[in-house]
């Protein structure tokens, strides 16, 4: 069986699709606007965070701005702000399209968005004010977590209602599976971790396992399925070809579902936990390579023969970069489980590199690609400047590459230094210096990229784009003419 969100043959289907896109306009726009605002906030915190790592006295005498609070604000604005509100936008738009159903209960979505922003905003203020829980990825104080949970529940209710109202005559598309799973998995993971760590804390002996299970699964049960859903949708869409193998895609999904929850403890080698937990997690990280390669093969074979499009279509360029970064990050993850690797590189900058590869390299890039595709269809005009998109891509590309390079070089050095007890901490610190300054340079490139993107996004909101009809391409390629917003 080979299905794809097909390009409709008749104008009736086109009209229906336009109507569906239009029905999503209000909610999707408000989520995207929130996402861009959070992205800028995260960028702002991120650059201060990075600068403080080599200049500890920088803005150092105010409690609000201490490294430990800025860092928490940065992580949360980036993941729960930019990543999550952006995801919501993509989920709404994609599900409406794939369900072939005009958007229902729109006011619930708008309410959910406001609640999310308020909860997260108050939570981050709380963290800056000294209410952080001190648990990585779960720093927000309890009251904020409750608001987020309520907001999220509204969102999930909507997802199920919309899914139930789908056009059941059409076969299910693989992206729907991933999105539906993500919509359920996230609150289960978030809710159970919050409960066990915060509202009714378990004994200290076990908190480390729960926290690391959550920190890992927040990325893999939430961001990963959404990123893959988007990649599975946009790659065939832009290339105009069906997914290479649909049964492979199904196998990929179910093996993913089966192994993903077992991950998260592989970097606890030597920690005060039962050995089997760590071992099971290492095995799972290796088994994860099955769904990862399935996805990689499927995407590669779909894109094959259309590489010119990767060059010319903004969406495809970002999405393909993200898909490749996903494969790289997953291989790295499987490596991280090995004992010799852990002995040297646990607790070093390499784990920071890994998290950033997942968040920036994989997830954010796919999100950018999706927004480049969706916005023209909501606003009714095309992106104003191919040059700005090229600049955005180049700055992100080199920013991510530079960050990976310096954090890996610095992390390897740090790992080798730390493993040798004769190297003093002063020396370890001195050796890491260049890589921390390099990281700030990388952050500056990403800052540039994000601001260019935000500027372009605002132009789009103000309807200052090019007239609809001919998509903005990065180079001439007649083949993608069909990507035009009116279709």
């Amino acid at each position: 069986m080979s299905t794809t969100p097909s390009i409709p043959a008749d104008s009736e289907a086109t009209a229906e699709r336009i109507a569906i896109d239009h029905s999503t306009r209000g909610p999707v726009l408000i989520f995207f606007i929130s996402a861009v605002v959070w992205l800028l906030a995260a960028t702002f915190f991120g650059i201060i965070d990075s600068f403080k790592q080599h200049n500890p006295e920088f803005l150092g005498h105010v409690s609000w701005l201490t490294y430990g609070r800025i860092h928490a604000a940065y992580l949360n604005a980036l993941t729960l702000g930019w990543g999550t509100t952006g995801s919501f936008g993509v989920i709404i738009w994609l599900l409406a399209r794939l369900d072939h159903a005009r958007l229902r209960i729109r006011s619930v979505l708008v309410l959910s968005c406001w609640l999310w922003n308020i909860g997260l905003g108050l939570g981050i203020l709380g963290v800056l004010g000294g209410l952080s829980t001190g648990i990585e990825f779960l720093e927000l104080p309890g009251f904020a977590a409750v608001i987020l949970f309520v907001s999220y529940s509204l969102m999930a209710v909507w997802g199920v209602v919309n899914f139930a109202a789908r056009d059941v005559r059409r076969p299910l598309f693989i992206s729907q599976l991933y999105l539906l799973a993500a919509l359920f998995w996230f609150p289960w993971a978030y809710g159970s971790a919050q409960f066990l760590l915060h509202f009714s804390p378990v004994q200290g002996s076990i908190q480390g396992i729960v926290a690391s299970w959550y920190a890992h699964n927040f990325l893999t049960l939430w961001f990963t399925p959404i990123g893959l859903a988007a990649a599975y949708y946009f790659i065939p869409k832009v290339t105009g070809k069906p997914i290479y193998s649909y049964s492979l895609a199904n196998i990929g999904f179910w093996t993913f579902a089966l192994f993903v929850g077992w991950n998260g403890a592989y970097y606890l080698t030597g920690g005060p936990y039962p050995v089997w937990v760590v071992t099971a997690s290492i095995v799972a990280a290796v088994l994860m390579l099955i769904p990862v390669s399935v996805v990689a093969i499927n995407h590669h074979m779909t894109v094959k023969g259309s590489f010119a499009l990767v060059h010319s279509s903004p969406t495809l360029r970002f999405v393909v970069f993200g898909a490749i970064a996903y494969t790289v990050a997953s291989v790295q993850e499987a490596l991280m489980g090995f004992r010799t690797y852990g002995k040297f590189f646990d607790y070093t900058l390499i784990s920071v590199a890994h998290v950033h590869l997942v968040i920036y390299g994989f997830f954010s890039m796919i999100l950018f690609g999706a927004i480049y595709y969706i916005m023209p269809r909501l606003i009714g005009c095309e992106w104003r400047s191919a040059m700005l998109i090229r600049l955005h891509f180049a700055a992100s590309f080199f920013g991510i590459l530079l960050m990976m390079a310096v954090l890996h070089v610095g992390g390897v050095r740090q790992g080798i230094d730390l493993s040798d007890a004769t190297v003093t901490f002063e020396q370890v610190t001195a050796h890491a210096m260049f890589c921390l300054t390099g990281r700030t340079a990388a952050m500056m490139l990403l800052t540039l990229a994000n601001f260019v993107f935000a500027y372009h996004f605002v132009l789009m909101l103000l309807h200052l784009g090019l007239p609809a009809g001919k998509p903005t391409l990065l180079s001439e390629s007649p083949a993608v003419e069909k990507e035009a917003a009116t279709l």
Partner: protein
Amino acid sequence: MNRLSVLFVGIFTSFLIGWIAMVRVPLGQIGRLQPDVNEETGDIFPPTPSGLAIAGEKVYAANGCVYCHTQIVRPEEEGSDIARKWGDRRTVARDYIRQTITFPGTQRIGPDLTNVGVRYNDAKWQHQHLYNPRSINAWSRMPSFDYLYVTRKIVGQKSDEALDLKGEFAPPAGYEVVPTTEARELVAYLLSLNRNYPLKEAPLPEK
């Protein structure tokens, strides 16, 4: 066949299996540990920290110490932790049962703190280091937590708690730097970080 319910069952079961394996079973296994009573001496380990030290966990959490410091000593064959004298023995689950929040951490920008109360058991030292780490190690990249201290005019006698700050770090003449309650709690917590006791599963090595 209602596809949604079938999908839901699949999505739910896959999550549940992972959750049971990675969260629930470990919880049953090491989630209700009791302190260790030494039959010969009658000592109970780990010792109960003071109320002030427990309050210090919140200060530690609020100021993000966990992003730079771990509190895990790995066994000898898994890294240099013991060779670096971060502890005489590895840490085990039972070590953490008295803490309401634990901070295993994921980064070692600074040294491991599992036993920092053994290495530096002098509150004055801890306060001065927190006030400005560079007053002790010029190369330190740890932030100053001087906002946890107040600089005030000396009225009558200098306070016993006043920090001994020298040179560029010293307050203006006639002034003194004293810890706030938060700083006192934090230091009580740091001083309580001491795993220098034997447990059945983790005896101290023969000296």
